[in-house]
């Protein structure tokens, strides 16, 4: 997708790309890659708006680093390493994520040659965010994937028993486990019925333990709105659960009360992440909006 030369020149100056001696054609390629990645540019006005909104200085720095410019690298390391290390420490206060941060440098420098050309991780940076945020995202992705891999390598309980409630340590009334199972199923259905945005809010707040402010920021709403929406969603879930317990499970009011009472003692291992995934099956059967 060729970009008008005058626009490239203007963006080049705006990015202060000459500071890192980035060739104009290289910078233009980066802009084109970014526009292609976003599939922006059906109309020239739209393309210009998109390109102007990019983090151009960071994009120029990334171009220079990818090309191996020494002064750019020095600047990059000096500026970004403290952020990267602090992010690593925040992810794993025990220091376990620092090796991930260190290993990123090798990939950013691009040790793996392909057809004589160094392939740097920087080629995936398209300027839609700051370089700092992108690095954090790469680190977060590596960290999460490593945790998930390690978890898979750990001895998992039998498939059949992974979802089962733990065996009672003392003889307790069997009715309580029936109630727990019922409330678990109805909760699962209630969450699956929620709109994706509400499920995302629940996942952020309960599964990922984000604060209301963080949740709100992610959803583009004020934290007070997040708080209200969470309360509304909880009410909706509760109403749905009660409706299902009465209607579909045929429980009396007293039995519904016992269901909730059993939860207040010990719900056992209920997995919201699993519950939220139920929605994905439902959603995937819906028309694909990504194409």
């Amino acid at each position, binding site marked *: 997708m060729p970009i008008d030369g005058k626009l490239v020149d203007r963006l080049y100056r705006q990015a202060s790309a000459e500071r890192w001696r980035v060739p104009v054609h290289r910078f233009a390629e980066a802009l084109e890659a970014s526009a292609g990645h976003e599939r922006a540019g059906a109309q020239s006005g739209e393309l210009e708006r998109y390109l102007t909104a990019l983090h151009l200085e960071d994009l120029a720095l990334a171009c220079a680093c990818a090309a191996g410019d020494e002064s750019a690298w020095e600047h990059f390391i000096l500026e970004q390493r403290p952020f990267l290390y602090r992010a690593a*420490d925040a992810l794993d206060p025990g220091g376990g994520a620092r090796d991930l941060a260190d290993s990123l440098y090798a990939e950013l420098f691009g040790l793996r040659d392909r057809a004589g050309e160094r392939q740097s991780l920087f080629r995936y940076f398209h300027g839609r965010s700051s370089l700092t945020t992108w690095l954090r995202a790469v680190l977060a992705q590596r960290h999460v994937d490593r945790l998930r891999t390690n978890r898979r390598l750990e001895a998992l309980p039998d498939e059949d028993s992974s979802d089962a409630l733990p065996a009672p340590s003392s003889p307790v009334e069997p009715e309580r486990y029936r109630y727990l199972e019922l409330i678990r199923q109805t909760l699962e259905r209630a969450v699956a019925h929620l709109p994706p945005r509400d499920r995302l809010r629940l996942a952020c707040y309960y*599964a990922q333990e984000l604060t209301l402010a963080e949740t709100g920021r992610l959803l583009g709403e004020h934290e007070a709105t997040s708080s209200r929406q969470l309360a509304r969603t909880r009410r909706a879930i509760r109403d749905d659960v009660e409706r299902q317990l009465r209607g579909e499970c045929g429980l009396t009011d007293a039995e519904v009360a016992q269901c909730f009472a059993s939860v207040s003692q010990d719900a056992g291992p209920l997995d919201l992440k699993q519950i939220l995934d139920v929605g994905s099956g439902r959603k995937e059967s819906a028309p694909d909006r990504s194409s």
Partner: protein
Amino acid sequence: MDTSRERDQSIERLLRQSLQTPRPDGATDSCLDAETLAAWIDGGLSGAALEMAQTHVADCARCQSMVGAMARTNAVVAQPEPERGLRRWLPWLVPLTAAAAAVVLWVAVPGDLSTPQRPAEEVQTQTAKTNAQEPSLDNQGQGQTGRAETGAASSADKKAETQAIAPELRKEVGRLEADRLQRQDAAAAPAVTLRSAPAAATPPAAVAAEAAAPAAAAPPATPGAEGARLARSANGVVGTITGANQIVSPNPSIRWRIAGSVVEHSTDGGSSWTAVPTGIAAELTAGAAPSTLVCWLVGRGGVVLLTTDGRTWRRVAFPEITDLSAVRATDARTASVSTADGRILTTSDGGVTWERR
């Protein structure tokens, strides 16, 4: 007893319980790549792209974990940036100086200590006045240059900047007020005297009002302000809580600070900080340090941490999985913890048992 409130709590408990069981599943083609995730976080996604990302993450455990990991690094990464920080604070230099001066004056001039909210109100009034003047200056500039469109954009930028700075300003005002309260405490109880807590303290009106609010489970938006309020309400409490997430011991050189789940320790009054591992991932919200070696921290999901040597932390069992918003402590055994919905639980045996008040 099965009240509506208890049912709501049961639903919330059910939702929280899910965190105990991790779910293994792999990446898919539709998972967000790091670049898209970063663009989302920085506001670089909009329209269909944003909706697509949100819809995917709503149902993808891996991407949710990535979003969570990003959020956990937000606070820590946002801390330094000295140059940009200074530039952003520059426009607030005058109002902040005025605020600080107002607080200093209020502390210096003896007055009625039974109305401790006045300085904060004064500070807010000062700030409001200064804020009110800024747009008119902008308008003048626009009128002079005649560049209405540019001026509007600049005004919008200014508004966005103002909105971004407002929480920081609030935090700063909270910190100033908390510092004042700390000085009051120091004046009332010289050295490190331990005073006994009132036998039947009534929760402050603000906390009671919060408990009655519909979104009862919401954690406080400004821990600094919450800390200041708690300190204000807690006559006879030695543990000092300051704003800006710093917990200062009776010896001001020794202090801790919290950001998300990260805890740092300083022995030189905050000039340098050392991260201390706690082994927990939950967000910490408040703390109290009754001595230079003892510090209590509380956080979301019933997290209570205690150190008795200043550096190593142990998790103290807490009877409820609920967000905790404040803590007061007199030593390593005695502490009162406030939940986000306004209840107070106390321990006098280092967290072995807890009692509702």
